[in-house]
């Protein structure tokens, strides 16, 4: 995808003809390995073969029936780490088949031609509630709606999509693309109630008494982990969540003013850090530093994201641990205090640990800092899912195969269970929980409660 300087408008995907040409490169493997590389059960071996034999509608069906967010995943998935990593053509001169791009082209072609392959089973009377309209919630809702259930999705924010809308910059994933994918969901009869947070003591459990046969919790992680807790109130200091959400809520002008011509530091080495740094540069920042306490290879962001960030001129400041902020006149942020680090032994994350080098403290003068060092469950989670067992970090404990929590008829998935994870992993959770709910509700032993 070509990067433009625009903050909105993601790059154009393949035309159908280009997708077909790419499909013609496919080796049509027996027992296709690509189809085993996706946590979400995507089956490129089948949909590429269908495309190769001009069964375009069938190819779209294969994608969308499996994954309601087939378009989003085609755009956003780190395919080089998943399906494309398994491709038999990896070692051939043309490299792996660009599966993500074919997938996106097929889904877009379906939208352009008005072909909707989604099929519903006979309607059922049971209602299911889904909390959160991110990838996990939407996937669960779609599967249940296909199975005939009446599904209502409760979304706290103004619009649906979760991280797809508020967590990814528009130049990577355009809201109009999301809207089209949401339309597919609507075609299944899923109701999404936005600006309807499920809050208050035992709110999740209360849904069960309001006539819902089961509840799926997928609120995501929206509270930023801060460098210093509690974070000092300081003009110029943002969290990545605040920064990226503001851009997506159309406040880019306002945010732009605070960044334009300034020196910006982004703290973190993941995808969100890359997105924040790129966005800051695109908003006209003079210099953007990306501060990371380990080295290049330990950064969790995808290789191409890192390369893109370097290429457009972001300064990677590696082996530096931010320890504090320095305030200037009127309490405004003036600098970030750093300590040089070196890499020690391997830690629990499987990466070499950063060890601070004594006596190397220094100050990097900056006007803005964006913290992108992770997210955690909202503070009030404890309250509204009172009966559900959680980890010490506040994540919900759920069976990885079914999403079942410690509370009957309450399921959970996505980041609230896994911690920060891939979109397709959230899709997997949503589908797995939907399957478990379908089987449980089907049993008709839900007389209790």
């Amino acid at each position: 995808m070509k990067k433009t300087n625009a903050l909105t408008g993601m790059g154009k995907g393949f035309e159908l003809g280009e997708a077909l040409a790419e499909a013609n490169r496919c080796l049509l493997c027996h027992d296709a390995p690509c189809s085993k590389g996706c946590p979400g059960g995507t089956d490129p071996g089948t949909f590429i073969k269908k495309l190769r034999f001009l069964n375009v509608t069938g190819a779209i069906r294969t994608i969308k029936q499996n994954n309601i967010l087939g378009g989003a995943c085609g755009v956003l998935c780190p395919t080089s780490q998943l399906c494309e990593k398994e491709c038999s053509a990896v070692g051939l001169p043309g490299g792996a088949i660009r599966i993500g791009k074919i997938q996106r082209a097929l889904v877009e072609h379906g939208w352009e031609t008005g072909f909707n392959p989604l099929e519903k089973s006979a309607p059922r009377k049971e209602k299911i509630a889904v909390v959160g309209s991110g990838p996990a919630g939407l996937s669960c809702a779609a599967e249940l709606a296909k199975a005939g259930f009446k599904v209502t999705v409760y979304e706290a924010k103004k619009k649906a999509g979760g991280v797809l809308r508020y967590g990814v910059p528009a130049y990577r994933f355009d809201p109009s693309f999301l809207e089209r994918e949401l339309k597919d969901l609507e075609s299944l009869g899923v109701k999404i109630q936005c600006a309807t947070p499920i809050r208050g003591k035992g709110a999740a459990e209360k849904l069960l008494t309001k006539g819902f046969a089961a509840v799926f919790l997928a609120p995501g992680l929206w509270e930023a982990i801060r460098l210093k807790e509690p974070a000092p109130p300081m003009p110029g200091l943002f969290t990545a969540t605040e920064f990226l959400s503001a851009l997506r809520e159309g406040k880019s002008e306002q945010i732009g003013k605070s960044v334009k011509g300034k020196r910006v530091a982004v703290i973190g080495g993941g995808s969100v850090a890359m997105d924040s740094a790129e966005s800051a540069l695109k908003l006209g920042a003079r210099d953007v530093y990306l501060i990371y306490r380990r080295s290049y290879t330990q950064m969790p962001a995808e290789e191409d994201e890192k390369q893109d960030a370097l290429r457009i001129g972001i300064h990677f400041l590696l082996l530096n641990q931010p320890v504090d902020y320095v305030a200037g006149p009127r309490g405004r942020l003036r600098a970030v205090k750093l300590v040089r680090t070196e890499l020690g032994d391997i830690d629990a994350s499987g990466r070499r640990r950063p060890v601070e080098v004594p006596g190397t403290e220094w100050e990097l003068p900056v006007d803005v800092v964006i913290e992108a060092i992770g997210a955690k469950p909202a503070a009030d989670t404890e309250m509204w899912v009172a009966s559900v067992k959680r980890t010490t970090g506040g994540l919900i404990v759920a069976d990885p195969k079914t999403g079942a929590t410690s509370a009957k008829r309450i399921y959970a998935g996505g980041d609230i269970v896994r911690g920060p994870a891939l979109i397709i992993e959230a899709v997997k959770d949503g589908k797995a929980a939907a399957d478990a709910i379908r089987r449980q509700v089907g049993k008709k032993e839900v007389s209790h409660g």
Partner: protein
Amino acid sequence: MAKPMDLSVDFCGFRLINPFMLSSSPVSNSAEMCERAFEAGWGGVAYKTIVSDRLPIIHPSPRMAAYQPSGKRQVGVQNVEQTSDRGLKANLLDIMYLKKHWPDRLVMASIMGFSNQEWADLSKACADAGADMLEINVSCPHMTVEGSGAKVGQVQDLVQKFTETCRKSCSIPLVAKMTPNITDITVPALYAKKGGADGIAAINSVAGLSGIGTDTWVPQPNVFGKGAVSGFTGPAIKPIGLKFVAELAKCKELGLPISGIGGIETWVDALEYLLVGASTLQVTTGIIHYGQGIVESMIEGLSDYMAQRKVKRVRDLVGKALPNLHETGEFDLTRQGVAQYDLDRCIGCGQCYTVCKDAGGWALEWDAQKRRPILDEKKCLSCMVCSFACPVDGLITFKEMPKTYRRADTVTLGEEMAGQLKG
């Protein structure tokens, strides 16, 4: 939307669940292979041509060679495959097995006799084994047995005679399989009808030479230093197959159902054969290239097409292109058009310019600075060769011009050159 459509179709009194069949070839060589095909979704088989045990069938080795023009793969196959080399009994048992386990699938036994009596015996034996119908193979272009295969199909009275023999020997429907290695395919087809055929299958493989070894000077497949004109199949022969099927379907005197064969790999190929008059479709080379699984996309693709076009039955597609098939003399020559360029999408390769100069009407100039063609509509022949060369899909399209449009005369020798001739 998009519930699977009913693809069933009637052919010579048998209702197939869909029109897709294996053709008589290595892909339908045994009950196991046919059963696998039925499991994959195929509606029927033309079982590999059965012969008597009188003459042993020994296959040349190697049997096939790939046609790969300029390295392009899976375009065509050259073969010297013979009829079944299995014993008659084994084949009859296989047919019995298939009919017992797959009563809803069409099992058409292809047969070839090497004498009139053999045609009679094979007809009766296959009918007794439970075959739903017979395919009379008078069209294999490379039989090693003298006086058989296409040699028969090119001699009309023999086609009639052997068909009559089969007709007298059994009561199941007879489908005569035609060779394309003939000028007018309706002639032998009409003789087959006279002999009692209930349907026509077309086409068998096209006699050809798909490659000559540049080191060995031996045509492929190279059978220990010898080559032969033999059967050529696959996507490369689809235009020939469509033509012959259309001609058979247009022949009012014939009026028999047709099983279309020749280069079918996708549902689009299948649809095209239906539109020119076939009601069942047979496939071999597509399976040689990609396996039986291609039927999945044939079924799904045709089904979605019918759902979108609101076509209820396969039979409603059969022959629908025939009213649009005319003699070239019937074209409306008062309507003319030109090539139209969407230059916003041009990538500047200049191939259009090259071919217009060397094969077209010299209608393009080349802006070397911008690397873009400049079209003079007056000179455009609407040959469309530029659009074949253009790598950007849909950049060059045909557009009709108003009646006032007049094409410029083709370039003639200028005065100066004419003068040189005089001198």
